[in-house]
Every structure is written in C-alpha cells, then in structure tokens.
C-alpha cells in the first residue's frame, strides 16, 4: 500500500467513515472544510509521527503542512530527508 493510501485510509476512517479511500482526493483541503479541526489536527500530527517515524516534536510544523494528503506526503518526505 502506498504512503498516500495509508494516510487516506486513516483520515477516512477517523473523520469521514461514510466514504472510502478512493473518494478522498489527494488535494482535498482537510482544514478549510473542517474535516480535520484544530483538536483533530494534533491527533493527526501525532499519528503521522508514529506511523512514519517522523520526529514531529523536533521540527517546526505549520498547519499548511497538513492541509491535504499531498501536503502531508511532502512534509514526510522533506523531514525524513533532512
């Protein structure tokens, strides 16, 4: 399973259980739509850290890094290669 699919599966099962992975576009704005609210965002960041071994406590994170699945993929890539 690709990283994108793993992320999507998590988001869909947590925040939009009526939908499937295929229905969540990678560019979907998770924040402006309220799908991931400020409380849920903290949980999502923690999950990404644990699932993909990203040291989320040590890097500076902006909400934009979690705005979409695409953004999260970029964030993982950049932090891991840093």
């Amino acid at each position: 399973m690709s990283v994108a699919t793993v992320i999507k599966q998590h988001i869909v099962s947590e925040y939009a259980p009526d939908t499937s992975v295929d229905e969540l576009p990678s560019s979907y704005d998770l924040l402006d739509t309220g799908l991931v609210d400020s409380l849920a965002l903290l949980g999502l960041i923690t999950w990404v850290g644990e699932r993909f071994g990203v040291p989320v406590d040590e890097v500076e994170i902006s909400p934009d890094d979690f705005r979409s699945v695409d953004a999260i993929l970029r964030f993982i890539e950049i932090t891991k290669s840093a």
Partner: protein
Amino acid sequence: MPVGTLPTNPLYEDFHDRAVRRPDAPALHWHDTVVDYGGLAALAELAYAELAAHPGGPVALPARKSPRAIALVLACLRAGRPLLLVSESLGRRTLNELVERAGCGWLAEAGEHTTDWTDLGPAGPGAPVLDPATAGLVLTTSGSTGTPKLVPLGAAALDRFTRWAHERFGLGEGRTVLNYAPLNFDLCLLDIWATLRAGGCAVLVDPEHAVDPRRLAELFERTRPQVVQAVPMLFRILAEAGTAPVPEVRHVVLTGDHTPLPVRRALPGLFPSAEFHSVYGCTETNDSFLHTLGPADLTEGGTVPLGRPLPGVRTALAGPDGPDGPDGPDGTLTGAGTGELLVATPFQTDGYLADGAPGGRFTTGPDGTRYFRSGDLVSRAEDGTLTLVGRTDFQVKVRGVRVSLEEVERVLLGHPEIAEAGVLALPDRAAGVRLHAVVRRRSERLNSLALRAYCAERLSKAAIPAAFRLTGDPLPSTSTGKVDRGRLRAELLEEST
C-alpha cells in the same frame, strides 16, 4: 345587554350584508358540498341563538373545520362574545389550562350536524374580563414547547387586517380562495375571514386530507381557486405528485417558512398565471412583510428577502445585545448588520392574555412605537434589503462564533442532491458544542467529503458541521412538515451514548 347598544363588528356586518344581497353566492366549499351565503347566514343565526342560550364568559372552540364552526365564529363576532379558538389536537390538560386562563364559560365543540356545549362553570377569581374591542378573537401561539400563549385580537385589528387582505389580493364576489391552514391559525384571517367579509368563497381543506396529493389535486380541479395561501409543504406535495397546472390561480401566498428552491422552481409550472408572494408574519403581529417573487427568486438559489413592510408597519433591528442590552431599545442598528427584528403592525395584539408577562415580548421604541420582539434574526444589507437568518433561539456559539443553525440548514438544502436537512448543536466535552448535520440525500453519490467542500465555500468555518450523517430515509418531521429537531436530537444523543 340589548342588541341595539352593541358596537357593530365590521367583519360580521359586511358578511351579513353579502348574505342579504346575494344569498345564493357560494361562501364555502367543504368536502363535496357548497354552502352559499344564505345557508351560512342561517347557520350563523342558529349559532347566535345557541350562544344566547349559553350565556356567561368567553366561548372556547376547538378548531375542527366545518361550516358550523365558521358560523359560530361569525355569531360570536356579531354578539361581541369573546371566542378562544384552539387547536383541535391539544392534549386535555393543555386545553383545560388554556380555557381556565382565558376564563371561558363554555366549551363549544362544533361537529357536522350539531354543536356540543359543555358548561365550564364560573371563571376562577383571577380570570381576565375580556373586552371584544381588544379581545374579540383569542388565538394561541404555536410554539412546540410549553403551553401556548393566548393572543387576543381586537375588532379594530381584525377590521384593518381583513381590509388590507381584501385590497391586496382582490378578494370579493366571484373570487375563490383556498384555505389550507387549520382553523385556529392566523392565516385564516386572510383566507377565510377576509374572504367572507369581501363576499368571496373559501375552499376549506380538511386537515385529514392535507397531505394527500390525490385529494388535493382533485380539490384544485373541482374548485379552481384564484388565491392560494399555504405553507411551502402544500406546494412541495403538489409538485412531487406532478399535479396538473391550475391556470386560474392569480395569487400564491407562501407563508410560515423558507420555500426551498426546488419548490420555488416548480411553482410557475403549477400556477402558470400567478404572482407569487412570500409573506412574513406571526400570530402576535399578523402579516408584516410581503415580497413578490421575481424571476430570479423562482430559479436561483439563495434566500428570498422579507420584502417590503405592509402599509403602516414599522420595523427596527435590535443590536447584538438585543433590547435588553446596555443600550436599551435605543440600541437598534441603523446601517447594515444582523439583529433581532422588532416589528409593529396595525394588526397586532395588545399583549398576551392572563400571562405573567403580558408585554414580555413587546418593547417600546425611542419614538414610542410598541414593537413586538419577533425572536427572528434578520440581516440588513447595505441597500436596506432585509433577509431572515433564523430564530434567535437557534443561534448558537461555536468556538465563540455566532452561528445560526437554520442558516446552515438552508445552505445544505441549496445542494441539489439534498432533500432534507437538520442541523443541531450538541454538547461536546472538548469543544463546548459541536454541530451535527443530518441530511437526506437524493442519491448515494453524495458523500460527507463533497458536502464539506460545498459548505466550506458558503459558510464561515465555525458554521461547517463537525459531523455529517447522510441517510436515504426521511427525517422525523412535525405536523407542518418541518424537521423535528427534538426527535432528531434525541436520536443523535441516543446514538452517542
């Protein structure tokens, strides 16, 4: 009191004149029969005699529609005997409480063939003494919680209202008007009482048949009304059933609710020769605003404005803190903004009857005008256009931001795939309150992700529901076809525990 000394009631007098001059003109359609003015006047004469045989105190009439019930109302107007018109579906306890508060001496139950009179005994010591000048007809508020409030309407208010309705909708001889509302609703002041005063004919829809598309279509086909006043539900039923067009209709009056876009779009097909009016009002003030829908209102999304105040109507918007805020009633908004609508009409009640706070919903403006606090949240645009946002009761704070639940519902209903929507604020340990939306979708293609994106384009972030439930089943609804928030709330709370 000898009859000669009674002040005459203009509504009754005009009806009586019509009956004398044109006894064969149709007055009422009821089931398969037509009652003419002579026949109705004879029933009213009979009711007048019965009234005299049951003296003492106001009369309470459960509003079961029938020519006999209408005749009794006319007889009470003639006799100057205050009449309490109550819903026929009230529980016994609520009915008892209302008749006691109004000090009614008799309960009159008008059936098809007879009227049953029940002696309620002498009024209690605290009962009000009703004056027909200010309380000829007593209606009730229709709130779904608590005991309804008693709303007395005086002869002069009835006179002014029925005259306005007559002129505005060209009522009169040869004009047939559809009466959809139950007999105790203020809407009947237009479709029954103004019609009978003007010499027209009222088509009474039996509440038992009110949601039966086949019977409704048959009634239109047979009676061919020129004026139709109803809540949007009637038009939704007609549209969904594919009812044949009724070209005789000249005026359609939409009341009581926002008319959803799919219904607005269907209107010109149903009534190809009609003008469509949206009327805003409540039992306390009666009709206050009228907006005649333009082509855009009938085809495009968005909200229909409240329209123009009726002649003699004055309005103001209370500031964010309302008339109870530090600014007092002077704290009204002058420019654009959103606030509670204050309204004063020539048709309004003097205040609630036998109520701990008879003037509780009234406030005196800086110019001395006695305004009714509508409880409706209204926004005023730069150009002065007023639009209804929702009830102040349905305004909640989500993370410190004011949100109108009804506004969120309206945005959801604007989505072509959504048939019904209910939005509730439920308590949440972490967030204070969270908005939950329950929608009936027309197809399974629509999911919560698409709906969120749709809301994000149209609502502030705080107003986007935190949780969506999409279903194919009808939502629980009230008798007037509105979503039943109470039951929806109970369902959601049950699921979450």
